[in-house]
């Protein structure tokens, strides 16, 4: 499989990365080189093989459903580029 320019532009939008025409052009070549490389996985017979979902065979750790942390609004927003009274500020979303 390979990607064309339109697909690259669509994927860039899905990934929320603005690309210029020139960048999209270059990325098309690079992505096709990588996709060409991973193509060989198709040779592997995987019939009856389960996909790996957990690296270590262990049950997911669980804890009691209780409040263990919180009250740190100032810490949470401390690194944000724009805030007001512990809220994140973003451009207007609803007209």
């Amino acid at each position, binding site marked *: 499989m390979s990607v064309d320019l339109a697909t690259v532009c669509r994927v860039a939008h899905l990934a929320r990365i603005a690309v210029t025409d020139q960048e999209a052009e270059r*990325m098309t070549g690079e992505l096709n080189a990588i996709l060409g490389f991973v193509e060989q996985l*198709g040779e592997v017979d995987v019939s009856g093989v389960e996909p*790996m979902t957990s*690296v270590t065979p262990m049950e997911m750790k669980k804890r009691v459903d209780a409040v263990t942390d919180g009250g740190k609004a100032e810490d949470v927003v401390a690194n944000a580029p724009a805030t007001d009274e512990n809220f994140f500020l973003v451009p207007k979303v609803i007209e």
Partner: protein
Amino acid sequence: MTDLTRLTIAEARAKLRAKEFTSAELTDAYLGAIDAANGELNAYVKVTPDKAREMAKRSDAKLAAGQGGDLEGIPLGIKDLFGTEGVHTQAASHILDGFEPRYESTVTANLWADGAVMLGKLNMDEFAMGSSNETSHYGPVKNPWRAQNSNLDLVPGGSSGGSASAVSAWLCAGATATDTGGSIRQPAAFTGTVGIKPTYGRCSRWGVVAFASSLDQAGPITRDVRDAAIMLKSMASVDEKDTTSVNIPVPDYEAAIGQSIKGMRIGIPKEYRVEGMPQEIETLWQKGIAWLKDAGAEIVDISLPHTKYALPAYYIVAPAEASSNLARYDGVRYGLRVPGKDIADMYEQTRAAGFGREVKRRIMIGTYVLSAGYYDAYYLQAQKVRTLIKKDFEDVFAAGIDTILTPATPSAAFGIADEDMAADPVKMYLNDIFTVTVNMAGLPGIAVPAGLDAKGLPLGLQLIGRPFEEETLFRTAHVIEQAAGRFEPAKWW
């Protein structure tokens, strides 16, 4: 007085306890070395002299009272991927401009609890994506090693290139690093240092900037095997805050150093003899085999049939996880924000300006393989292949193999701005061909220096172990180190 920066962690620890010098003196020696070298090597992205001196002072008080932890007063460098409270943490990316977390990663908290001193944050490939430390927003790191009769600057490997360069050039006693596809072991091999990636789940990932969560593991880069054991013992822990942290007590790795490997069964996988591999690498591998045999180990030819599929599977799984993990950099919560005509445009402009080329490339691949219509063909297929790769290892371990010996990298360090690598991303990816299988299977792997090539550049061997049997790796790597000796660059910087 001898140059304090040349001491290993074990040597410095003994001399600090014997009060031959203070941590303040040791720390000042390192800060002076960094000052003199960093303009040239670019290993540190942020030096924290005030914090270092303050921590050293506290350590000296403890040492004077005959107290202190295992790393009391030892100055370390920390990869920029680890969250350090109130201190530069940017994964060497532009998109995290100015980010100073309000929390401390579990791994670094463990080190400070044991008395270590922080010298600063180390350069790396942006978001740990790279094998040459050239994708950093802060520019490339130079390898302290140069080929004989050459002034050409070489890469230190990546992504933990700052860690490897700093340890090799005596700019810290040891460094933290992380490894997603080879990012501890490849730079260690390129700089004549020791690097271990422990079993997945051994070091907590909490507070470490995420790249590919099912593959990322922290580990140390040090000047010798004993130092790696000392540092890993401190870094590893059982952590409630990481659901993949495994509930097994951390052993005393240092106690494994010097133990015999008599009767140990060492596997030699035929699939690691790849086409186009330089003769020097093959020769080094044979030397390693001979050393282990001389030490009483039994050498067994083994097969890991799915080896060649590990790298292509990795280049689906890792970008897929990265595209998801890096979705959080949106210009709202931290770091860089570039204004746009609406919120979606703000996201797109911020991410376009904040991420470098390699990171964008991987996010794009990851987004594509996870997108509707392609998920089964790429991602699901790769995860099934991953099961087979892991099973290859399980089969040989079940057949009685204790550890596997391979080369660490397919070549020695290459030049900065290598044209072949720049032209073809896949060429750069091939650097990890011997290391990436270990991440895919979640196993521990150690790179240990084993010799120099014809140009005088260091080469490393890799040992792969059973899950949570890092002690076997330390034991065996120490045998190689004893036979091969240690390797230091000639100072030019």
